[in-house]
């Protein structure tokens, strides 16, 4: 096989890891609270800025900055739920989507106001691995591994703990859980915190690969939503598979055509898939 094609496929696999990590938190929110946080990618952006400022400006060690950024993102997640989603939890899902969309404008503009529109680079350069003549981005490899570990931990948390069971139960039937003595509100708040925290985790890995700027959310926000829907809302494994399908379309399409055409193919694939299987690849009707 063509070595460059192989490299494209491997890089696609690694990109899939990044996308899977990004979609993890959104998928949780989507599945449990049944809300599309259009603002999700902007929470990632905020956490990226947090890492940048704490590390580059205040001189915090990288890992401390990462931890702080995850905490900040989790806090933003809680605030999104308490301030924006909760007052309109009963109204049409599209209104919730739009309300978080207003928040998207807010965070984006606030970032422009505070930090300007410059592209900011963390300045941490990770080596590029060379493996049997193939060049592989080390930061993407880390993102890939962390995405896998994150998904497994999240799966164990949802499957094995009491809280996780409550979260899964509430995603199946909102009304009944209240009657069963589960405090819905605290489940939602905890889910939002975890969702936000996962956005923060994704941010820590993205900031190693990409420059931060106020509009970075718009570049990978849409593809993250598509992946969640494609995988079946709230279906973690489906989301994972969808992330890798999308990333392969982008990688292989990019190899044969151009980067833009590859993304066009990915979006067209999404549109066709949602028409054929609106419940997602692994979703149940």
């Amino acid at each position, binding site marked *: 096989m063509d070595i460059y094609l192989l490299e494209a496929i491997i890089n696609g696999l690694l990109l899939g890891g990044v996308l899977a990590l990004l979609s993890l938190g959104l998928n949780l929110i989507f599945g449990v609270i049944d809300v599309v946080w259009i603002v999700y990618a902007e929470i990632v952006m905020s956490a990226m800025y947090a890492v940048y400022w704490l590390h580059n400006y205040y001189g915090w060690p990288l890992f401390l900055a990462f931890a702080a950024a995850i905490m900040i993102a989790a806090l933003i997640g809680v605030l999104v739920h308490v301030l924006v989603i909760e007052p309109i939890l009963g109204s049409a899902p599209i*209104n919730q989507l739009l309300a978080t969309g*207003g928040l998207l*404008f*807010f*965070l984006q*503009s606030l970032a422009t106001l505070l930090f300007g529109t410059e592209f900011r680079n963390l300045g941490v350069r990770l080596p590029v691995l060379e493996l049997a003549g193939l060049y592989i981005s080390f930061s993407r490899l880390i993102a890939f591994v962390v995405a896998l570990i994150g998904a497994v931990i999240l799966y164990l948390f949802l499957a094995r703990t009491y809280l996780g069971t409550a979260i899964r139960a509430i995603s199946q039937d909102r009304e009944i859980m209240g009657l069963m003595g589960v405090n819905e509100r605290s489940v939602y708040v905890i889910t939002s915190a975890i969702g936000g925290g996962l956005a923060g985790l994704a941010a820590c890995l993205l900031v190693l690969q990409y420059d931060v700027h106020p509009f970075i959310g718009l570049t990978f926000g849409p593809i993250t939503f598509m992946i969640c829907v494609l995988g079946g809302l709230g279906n973690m494994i489906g989301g994972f598979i969808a992330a890798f399908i999308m990333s392969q379309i982008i990688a292989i399409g990019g190899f044969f055509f151009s980067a833009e055409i590859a*993304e*066009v193919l990915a*979006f067209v694939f999404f549109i066709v898939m949602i028409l054929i299987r609106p419940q997602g690849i692994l979703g149940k009707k």
Partner: protein
Amino acid sequence: MNAQRLIAYLPPAAILALPFFMPNYYQHLAVQIVIWSLVYTSWSLMGRFRLTSLGHGAFLGVGAYVPTLLWNNWSVSPWLGIPVAMALAVTLALVVGYPCFRLKVVGHYFALVTLALGQVVLLVIVAARDVTGGSLGMTPRIVGHSWYALQLPDKSEFYAVALAAWLIGIAVWFRVDRGMERAALEAIGEDEDAAAAIGIDVLREKLKITALSTALTALGGALYAQYLMYLNPDIMSGVGVSFQIVFASIAGGMYSALGPTVGAAFTIGLNEGLRVLFGTHFIGAANTIYGALLVVFIIFMPRGIVGLFETLRTRTRTPPPSGAPDTQPAE
């Protein structure tokens, strides 16, 4: 039409005529407000019936690029190019809309499909950089003042053209608002199956309103390109513009004829006002305030600015007895 009604039409007509007598800068603002009002009104045609499109940037982009490409490459007058662009936008909308409506893709699924469509058009424009200039943008071939090329450096002339287009948009809005379509589409928005059960052709009604909405959006895009004389995929298409269209319409009030227009005036006014006040020190300040306001609007007053005034007016006119009727649309 009796004299009393004629007098009632005078103040709005005076407001619309005012920009003709104003300095250049205000004319520039007026043209922008009127063009965006047309686009927002078109979006609201769908949006008010819960067909929330997050991809209207796609149709704006088609409207902007097609006439310019036809003009630059084959010297086709925009007077012909714009109808062609509108037809193409409608075709694109129907190709995606038909299976969507057929398979009952609604709510936030519909929103995400349209979001993807917006991305597709944006990326195609960027990818076809040999003809569209890609991210660098392009300019229509300049011939100076020409009605044939719809290149009108005189702002008051362009304002007249934009105003005419806006009036068409408002007329369509009223036509839909007063026709049977409105009742049918509201029923569909509430419950598709029930609407179908009482004999409403759900698919047909949805396709009709989608075609109207996208055609007018393309018209707005074409006018905006002809006015700026510069096209750029980020200005004319893409997620940013699509969101701008949605949110300005909601802020103004998508359930009222003049709501989207108020939304356009409000957002452009806010932006310009803060820019003049603070200069370039606080880039993003206007949108930060705007974003916060949007969240408040959507949570507490989904009918927007105009909706708020309508509510206040009906409350003062007829003081409701106990248990005031809720004027908010029931969710």
